[in-house]
């Protein structure tokens, strides 16, 4: 059993301990993977801090608890990791833990007039009847400071002043790729500040998981980032299998890996299509969709689904591959290799496209790590963060592939990383497709799966970054808490850093290259 090794720290020591780990000489924990809010009932409220050292790949978990449920306070670590700012807002939103020192303590997903904190175990499900009133967004945030005498002092910070010209990009907007709203303060065409407002399609999946059995929780993963449906479900299946000690067959491992890579190609083709459309080029949009259609057809034959596929299950995969699967995948890769030149001819080499992308929206390596911008976005800034390389799972340690990194960190680098990853994924599939071993595609599992007590976590490289599953089990057939590390939340958080000083048109192009998907943010 590989339960996570958790270090318990006292709430008041949390900042010092985190700071020591962050600036450790040997192994600086410079990447905060996630903050998972927790309600341990009697023990109190608290949070788990999942962190990683980007140089060595060592992972650690800190646990901080506060016993006072009515006035729960923890020290903020947003000075150490920039991504903590938005993650702490999420914890506050769902658990009501206030973080002293975080300048922005607004709710993140829920309405500002929401009563109670829904992920607490004692939350009354009837306390918020359907509210048809319009929500007014406050222009100020609250900040709490811990005084030396132990009292808490509140202070108000201004998000947008009266002199700001604020334009709403979203929630209904062609280029936000979903129901995302960015309050954007502009000066002429230049962007001064972006404040993302999230939660328009929040479905409370993490809360729902707490009353679902383990096989039932699988059904919701495909609905997170629907362009990484296989990856998400793969991560959750792996987590449950590891915790329950289920060994899956090699055939299933091969199939999962191939499906993951097909899904990645699918997602990156859609990325290409959407990016060029965001920039006003409608013709290349159809190129990407033409090839993506072929992948969906291949997947449909095997899994029965095109977007929501429900393919991975605990113990393997749902069904064996279709007899035509191998032939069609090989034909598709051959076809893709022959048409990818058209993609580059019409867009990559285009003088306008280069003008719009090169040198625009530069994200430095330090910022990428601090903001937790994983995936192609981080790799374009020179941060080698591919989970497939650093923490191999499934067949990834047996195949040969290159991790694409670039150093520029601009929109063009982010675009090229993804275009090159399409070819790497083809390369991975080619190594596996002819060698799928015979055997069971699914091992028998017990009818009722119960996990041993403990905290378990896995991560996979999804289409747009590190997707993580953080699971706490108390020995039941239901998870006590099941949290997903969203790939998109840090990317949306990155928008403000990257877009300041750029033009409105660049905001759209940068949003396209960061490549976030909203249902994954609004879990």
């Amino acid at each position: 059993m590989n339960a996570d090794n958790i270090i318990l720290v006292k709430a008041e020591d949390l900042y010092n301990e985190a700071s020591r780990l962050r600036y450790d000489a040997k192994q600086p924990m410079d990447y905060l993977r996630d903050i998972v809010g927790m309600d341990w009932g009697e023990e109190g409220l608290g949070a788990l801090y999942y962190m990683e050292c980007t140089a060595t790949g060592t992972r650690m978990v800190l646990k901080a608890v506060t016993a006072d449920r009515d006035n729960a306070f923890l020290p903020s670590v947003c000075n150490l990791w920039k991504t903590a700012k938005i993650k702490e807002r999420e914890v506050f939103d769902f658990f009501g833990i206030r973080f002293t020192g975080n300048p922005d303590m607004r709710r993140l997903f829920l309405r500002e007039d929401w009563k109670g904190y829904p992920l607490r175990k004692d939350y009354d499900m009837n306390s918020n009847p359907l509210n048809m009133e319009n929500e007014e967004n406050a222009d100020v945030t609250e900040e709490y400071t811990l005084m030396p005498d132990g009292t808490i002092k509140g202070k108000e910070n201004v998000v947008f002043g009266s002199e700001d010209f604020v334009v709403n990009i979203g929630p209904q907007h062609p280029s936000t790729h979903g129901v995302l709203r960015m309050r954007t303060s502009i000066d002429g065409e230049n962007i001064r500040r972006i404040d993302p407002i999230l939660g328009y399609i929040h479905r409370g999946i993490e809360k729902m998981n707490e009353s679902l059995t383990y096989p039932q929780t699988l059904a919701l993963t495909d609905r997170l980032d629907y362009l990484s449906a296989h990856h998400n479900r793969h991560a959750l299946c792996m987590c449950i299998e590891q915790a329950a000690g289920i060994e899956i067959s090699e055939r299933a491992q091969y199939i999962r890996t191939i499906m993951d890579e097909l899904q990645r190609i699918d997602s990156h083709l859609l990325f290409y299509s959407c990016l060029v459309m965001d920039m006003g080029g409608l013709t290349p949009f159809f190129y990407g969709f033409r090839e993506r259609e072929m992948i969906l057809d291949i997947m449909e034959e095997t899994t029965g689904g095109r977007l929501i596929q429900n393919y991975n299950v605990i113990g393997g995969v749902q069904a064996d591959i279709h007899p035509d699967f191998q032939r069609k995948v090989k034909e598709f890769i051959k076809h893709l290799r022959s048409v990818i030149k058209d993609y580059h001819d019409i867009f990559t080499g285009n003088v306008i496209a280069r003008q719009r992308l090169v040198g625009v929206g530069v994200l430095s390596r330090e910022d990428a790590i601090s903001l937790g911008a994983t995936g192609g976005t981080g790799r374009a800034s020179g941060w080698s963060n591919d989970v497939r390389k650093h923490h191999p799972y499934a067949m990834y340690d047996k195949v040969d592939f290159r991790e694409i990194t670039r150093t520029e960190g601009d929109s063009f680098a982010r675009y090229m990383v993804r275009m090159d990853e399409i070819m790497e994924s083809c390369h991975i599939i080619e190594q596996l497709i002819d060698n799928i071993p015979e055997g069971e595609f699914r091992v028998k599992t017990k009818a009722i799966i119960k996990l041993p007590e403990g905290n378990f976590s896995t991560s996979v490289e999804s289409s747009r970054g590190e997707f993580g599953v953080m699971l706490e089990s108390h020995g039941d057939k239901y998870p006590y808490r099941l949290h997903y590390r969203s790939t998109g939340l840090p990317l949306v958080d990155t928008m403000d850093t990257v877009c300041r000083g750029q033009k409105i048109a660049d905001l759209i192009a940068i949003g396209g290259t960061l490549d976030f998907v909203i249902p994954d943010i609004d879990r």
Partner: protein
Amino acid sequence: MFDYYNLEPVLMWIHSTMCGLMPEWLAFTIEGIAVGIFIMVMYAVLAIILIYMERKVCAAFQCRIGPDRVGGRGGLLQVPADVIKILTKEIISLKNSDKFLYALAPFLVIMASILTFSCLPWNKGGEILHMNIGIFFVLAASSIGVLGILLAGWSSNSKYTLIGAVRSGAMIISYELSIGLSVLTMVILCGTMDIQEIVAYQENGWNIFKGHLPALMAFVIYLIAGNAEANRAPFDLAEAEQELTAGYHTEYSGMHFGFFYLAEYLNLFITAGIAVTLFLGGWMPLHIAGLEGFNTIMDYIPGVIWFVGKTFFVVFLLMWIRWTFPRLRIDQVLILEWKYLMPLSLLVLVIMTVMKVFGLVF
């Protein structure tokens, strides 16, 4: 030569017959109304043809078929059906908009477009508005359109429309310089501002051949600037749908929106039509020196077919550009104009003047 299709005697005959039947003022009034109706009908028919063409051309570029359900395999009735739909739609009025300007703006845009449209030389003797400063009038009338766009953006009382209108204002006013200068280049070559005389000047060779190098450069500058003037991709930032949903006409509905839409397509046609008039010989047939038989056959084709054919060819070029390039950013659009196109068109103007003075043009 080739006077078979000259419309002038026919029109004069109609006029004198009518004057014989009624007082001259009444004849003029009736003719004016008839011509007005004729312009409107032509305008609507051309818009339908252009929209259909755009859909089919765009589909061909995008590996699609395009409209193919309504009206047979070719989808010929799709656009008329859309026209009927838009005519029956409600015209909404917004709570905090400036009601008068909001209603006025689409009419300004369409008026500018119709005025310019009336100046096109369709055939020998087939020009509706004929004056000795014709091309100057075209430039002046087309500038009214930007006023409509600015008003539409401002009076809608929305942030998106305002940004779109300001973008459009900055862009169109800039690109009018290049258009004006390249038109001026051709006026110097022809020595006249009268549109019919500009066409007549090209009787023994189109301007693009007669003016060779500077004319060719002026043609390219005109096409780029004209594309910007017509608010089409890659210069469609005024209505950049991925950024501003629909730019200056976001808040318009029904036929008010339809006017903007019509004007956009007709401006495309007008831009191409003026390009044909200035550079490609207007309604003049293609003549190749030395091939008498060929030239005679070309003369038998009516001028109106030449004009429309050439114009649709240029329209196709502009559509090709639209469906290939991504959109520019506002600062890049202005840099392109003020740092490259405008100095270049000034240079072309000087070259053309020098060549004309020293007789280096044909």
